[in-house]
């Protein structure tokens, strides 16, 4: 029983990271229909930036804050300089471009920081704390807390603010959005900026347990795809719930189904994608746009 609870908590922690990255994927997908394959590498780049600041003597939280600001600016710049010129062209072109970005960012990371894994000291100690005989790692609990705070902030942004209303309008119906005066291109750029920030949070939260190296987020990105598909590619809430469910599921299956173990973890995630696409293609929270004729 103790082990069961521990597995759930550590599953929630890794699931929180999948969920944050999935949220980034969903933000871009629902406004442009594009799957940003470079999202994971963007997150790794952000984590490297944070690591560099820390290794120059910055404390964690200021370094983290600066990383988020830089990531936001980077996402914004990426959209306006590279994505926007081919926006409106075939989707496949943009998707291939994001794959190109994946390779470019990966190369950039290796070129600047080298391929060797670096130890990343996060804000949460790895020391366990005991609650009624069960030991949890502070790191896990911290990541879970961060994931929930971020989800709440994103929720408030989207449903309670004017900016969120504009972002949703531009995503749902760009032509109509322009007619009411929403600057749709700015909204798309903001979407990329936000996605980059979410990715940065995922990357920095993942780095202490995964070790920082250029390929750090590649498998995480696959889990994030699975999480996004599970929750619904167009549902921000679904992305996070999908991530948490996936994290817990993978941990439990890995622990209790012996023939799966650790080796088939990724295959299990892909099986989840397949199963969702077969049974409920719009995901748990996704909805086909309601239309009455």
């Amino acid at each position, binding site marked *: 029983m103790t082990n069961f609870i521990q597995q759930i908590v550590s599953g929630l922690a890794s699931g929180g990271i999948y969920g944050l990255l999935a949220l980034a994927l969903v933000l871009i997908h629902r406004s442009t229909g594009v799957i940003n394959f470079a999202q994971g590498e963007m997150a790794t780049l952000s984590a490297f930036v944070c690591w560099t600041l820390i290794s120059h003597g910055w404390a964690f939280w200021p370094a983290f804050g600066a990383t988020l600001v830089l990531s936001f600016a980077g996402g914004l710049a990426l959209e306006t300089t590279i994505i926007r010129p081919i926006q409106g062209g075939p989707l496949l072109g943009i998707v291939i471009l994001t794959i190109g970005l994946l390779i470019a960012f990966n190369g950039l990371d290796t070129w600047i920081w080298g391929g060797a894994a670096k130890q990343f000291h996060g804000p949460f100690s790895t020391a366990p704390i005991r609650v009624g005989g069960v030991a949890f790692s502070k790191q896990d609990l911290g990541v879970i807390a961060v994931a929930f705070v971020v989800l709440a902030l994103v929720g408030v942004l989207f449903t309670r603010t004017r900016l969120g209303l504009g972002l*949703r*309008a531009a995503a749902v119906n760009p032509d*109509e*959005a322009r007619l009411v*005066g929403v600057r749709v291109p700015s909204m798309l750029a903001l979407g990329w900026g936000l996605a980059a920030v979410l990715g940065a949070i995922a990357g920095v939260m993942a780095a202490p347990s995964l070790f920082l190296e250029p390929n750090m987020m590649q498998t995480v990105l696959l889990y994030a795809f699975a999480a996004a598909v599970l929750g619904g590619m167009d549902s921000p809430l679904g992305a996070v719930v999908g991530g948490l469910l996936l994290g817990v599921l993978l941990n439990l299956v890995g622990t209790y189904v012996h023939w799966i173990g650790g080796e088939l973890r990724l295959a299990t995630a892909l099986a989840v994608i397949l199963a969702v696409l077969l049974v409920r293609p719009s995901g748990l929270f996704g909805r086909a746009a309601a239309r009455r004729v």
Partner: protein
Amino acid sequence: MSLLELQGVEARYGEIRALHGVTLTVDEGDFVALLGANGAGKTTTLRAVSGTVKTSGDVLLDGQKLFRRTPEAMARRGVAHVPEGRGTFSTLSVLDNLRLGAWVHGNAEPRELAHVFEFFPRLYERRLQQAGLLSGGEQQMLALGRAMMARPRLLLLDEPSLGLAPRVAREIFGVLGRKNETGTTIVVVEQNATLALEAAQHAFVLETGRVVLGGDAADLRKNESVRRSYLGY
């Protein structure tokens, strides 16, 4: 004082020319109907004003020539365009749709919302529902209500009665009449010429991308060719 002026406006969709030099004037406070057969260029005329189609020729607002007409910029200048087919944000709530109408003013004021709900009580009952789940008539009300939230000087409507029950269509035109009385200038494209000529003060008839006839709505109602072509008696 003319609010809107089109001088020799041409527009094309790729190879196809939709407007062959449309010239017309809409006065401040006017209620204008655009009549014409399918493909005559009525919709494109509205789109030329709101900047949703590329044009040549001059479009003047308040006597000032407008150069860069994007839909966003025109919305800021007080032009609200309700396109054909009840363009709403289908997955957003009715309330969010209305809030978006007031986008150019910042946040929607409760007073404006109350005003729209006064005109359309049914929208109030359904304010938390997804717009896409409303009936056709309710969606048209929502599209109109959203345009009202922008407090526009110039309201452009494309086929507001399309597919609606006659009673609902009259309700919509009744609201347009009341908005017009309080100073909103209205240009409406309408297949139902009887309804349009009853509501409007002036009308223009378009044929193959040109204005071929214009004048008082009352006079046009008596005009032999308008009666035969558009009123059917």
